[in-house]
């Protein structure tokens, strides 16, 4: 690594103290498709738009919401390929923890390790920051948790959050609608309504994806049929 022409970091400070590459990465996130998450009293829901570039794309093969462990799921806004790489690394870290301690990794620990990876790519030679922000939803001994991880590697725990194109409208909507004692099904309805707010075109089970985890501690991506049921309830 030391011999390479690119052993210096491409992410360097500007005179104003900012890391411009990270700002640009956040811009990439901000122009990505909207995604959001809501933490209920008995679970967490995450959801995203699934706008495909053409009607010829086989939408059943595209899955934006992914499992990291049986009880932790994640969704992103930003660059899909960067998301794939992070998911792969996070899954490996979770499995390594399990192999060492024979205990499933706590959500906070996995988020911290993923965030560490993202930070490393802002301070290493020859690499660029990841162009994604992640929403990580999990349920462990500490209860339901929702975390957002940014390209800089900073992470925050949220009661409800949104990212991507429609972030300001979505967050305003969530601020109004969120209540502390919301249950998981209410949260799913609220998530759908929030997505609907900034949606271009007709919302349907083919152009959104929803993942949820409840007290059973099993993260699941909803099937299109289940999404249709929730959509019907919302109408």
């Amino acid at each position, binding site marked *: 690594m030391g011999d390479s022409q690119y052993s210096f970091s491409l992410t360097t400070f500007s005179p104003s103290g900012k890391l411009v590459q990270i700002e640009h990465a956040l811009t990439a996130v901000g122009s990505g498709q909207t995604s959001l998450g809501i933490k209920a009293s008995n679970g967490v829901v995450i959801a995203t738009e699934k706008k495909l570039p053409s009607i010829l794309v086989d939408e059943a093969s595209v899955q934006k919401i992914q499992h990291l462990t049986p009880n932790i799921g994640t969704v992103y806004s930003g660059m899909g390929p960067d998301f794939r790489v992070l998911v792969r690394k996070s899954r490996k870290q979770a499995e390594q923890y399990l*192999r*060492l*301690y024979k*205990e499933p990794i*706590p959500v906070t620990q996995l988020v*911290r390790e993923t965030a560490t990876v993202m930070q490393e790519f802002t301070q290493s030679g020859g690499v660029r920051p990841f162009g994604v922000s992640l929403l990580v939803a999990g349920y462990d001994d500490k209860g339901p948790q929702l975390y957002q991880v940014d390209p800089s590697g900073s992470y925050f725990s949220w009661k409800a959050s949104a990212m991507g194109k429609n972030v300001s409208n979505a967050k305003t909507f969530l601020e109004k609608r969120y209540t502390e004692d919301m249950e998981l099904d209410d949260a799913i309805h609220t998530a759908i309504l929030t997505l609907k707010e900034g949606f271009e075109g007709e919302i349907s089970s083919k152009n959104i994806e929803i993942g949820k985890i409840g007290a059973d501690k099993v993260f699941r991506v909803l099937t299109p049929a289940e999404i249709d049921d929730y959509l019907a309830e919302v109408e």
Partner: protein
Amino acid sequence: MQIFEYNGSAVVAMVGKNCFAIASDRRLGVQLQTIATDFQRISKIHDHLFIGLSGLATDVQTLYQRLVFRHKLYQLREERDMKPETFASLVSAILYEKRFGPYLCQPVIAGLGDDNKPFICTMDSIGAKELAKDFVVSGTASESLYGACEAMFKPDMEAEELFETISQALLSSVDRDCLSGWGGHVYVVTPDEIKEKILKGRMD
């Protein structure tokens, strides 16, 4: 010369009713010569988790230092103590890392898990875990310890009776082993307190 019998040791742990006891001898020898009579073989990892290590004394000390290091970092990162089962998995992994140049120790792990349920286990020097519901033994006096424990053990003993039982089992076993002895060191741990006692047996 057997390397596991170079220093001499005896460690035993027993399960009681919502409590456990872990005991060891106190002799440190270099083959037939005794050099110390107050050697610490049992160490506290946290208030509800103890580990006793038998075998080569230098590895006993080094392994203990490594485990305390790992546990302290875990405590800082995860803001909680390690469960005994988790700790046992960690010890097993650390021992297996040195599969082809092992630590010459046999650990005995004893702790109170969730709901204060006692947990004991032992493993060989390369990390093969052996869980037990009643007692586990290790060291040069292990054969005698097996016999004594099998005869004296009863399930669901309270802390007082458990202390008496484990002490008698330890002292009678080390008396039959020339490499271990010079007294005993017993810890009896309940959810609320840790009782530590030094035993005086045949001082030879």
